[in-house]
């Protein structure tokens, strides 16, 4: 298996793995330590959800405004557009003006879409 998989230690992603492990470990350690050494003396007021000093009411599971969804959809479109920028940026220097013009057309096409959304009043919060 180790033959077909990329070598782990030489990969820069070994640092990502260490980062994930240390990051998770620190959180678990500090919260675990706090749980061990703190006195536990709960009262109903202490157990209330902290909401920036306001008294919380209702449940957290409410129906959110459906208006958010169109922003999510727009985000998905431009997210997919951003994907194509990565391989382009890697070879941009070697391909020069031609690659620049191609990406310009690509992005201009989506700027039209953004203009359409703007004109339709999608970006406005009514």
């Amino acid at each position, binding site marked *: 298996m180790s033959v077909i998989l990329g070598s782990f230690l030489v990969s820069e992603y070994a640092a990502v793995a260490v980062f994930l492990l240390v990051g998770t470990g620190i959180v678990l350690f500090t919260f675990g330590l706090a749980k061990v050494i703190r006195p536990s003396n709960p009262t109903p007021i202490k157990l209330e959800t902290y909401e920036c000093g306001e008294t919380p009411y209702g449940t957290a599971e409410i129906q959110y405004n459906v208006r958010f969804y169109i922003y*999510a959809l727009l985000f998905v479109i431009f*997210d997919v557009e951003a994907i194509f920028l990565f391989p382009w940026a890697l070879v941009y220097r070697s391909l020069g003006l031609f690659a620049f013009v*191609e990406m310009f*057309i690509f992005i201009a*096409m989506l700027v*039209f879409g953004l203009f359409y959304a703007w004109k*339709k009043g999608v970006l406005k919060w009514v």
Partner: protein
Amino acid sequence: MTDAFLTNLAFYVISFCVIAGGIFVVSSRNLFHSAVFLVFTLFSVAGIFVMLSAYLLAAIQVLVYVGAVAMLMIFGVMLTTQLSNVRIRYMNEQVWPALLICAGFLALLVYGLTDTPFATGNVAAPVEGAKAIGTLLMTKYVLPFEMVSVLLLAALVGAIVIAKKD
């Protein structure tokens, strides 16, 4: 602690995360928890891509699946009335047909995996994969590349037309 051992360890840990996350997605009784575990599972799949030296694919997995698709699902749960409160039943009423389909799919996978001649030699991973994709997109496949933007534009306009009826 050799390199091969660490590579294998990383592979098994990531695979465990994918499978455990997937099981939580289908067995959680809260739809919102399912959606969050789906994010975890999709992120772990990106780890598998990294181990296969498919770095661009890993980046796409994180950006599109973890960033966009999972977010759409969480939005879908949060925007639906009373859906996040519902304790869903996760027992299927049609256990036998489901089992039959699963067994058939498993047999297909096993058949495909045993039948495929996998390269087991010391195959060098294509390190410059993303660069090669970039060059191909800019030269040989320039028309499909520009068509993608037209497709995205159509999706954008379509989404707006459907979402804004007025």
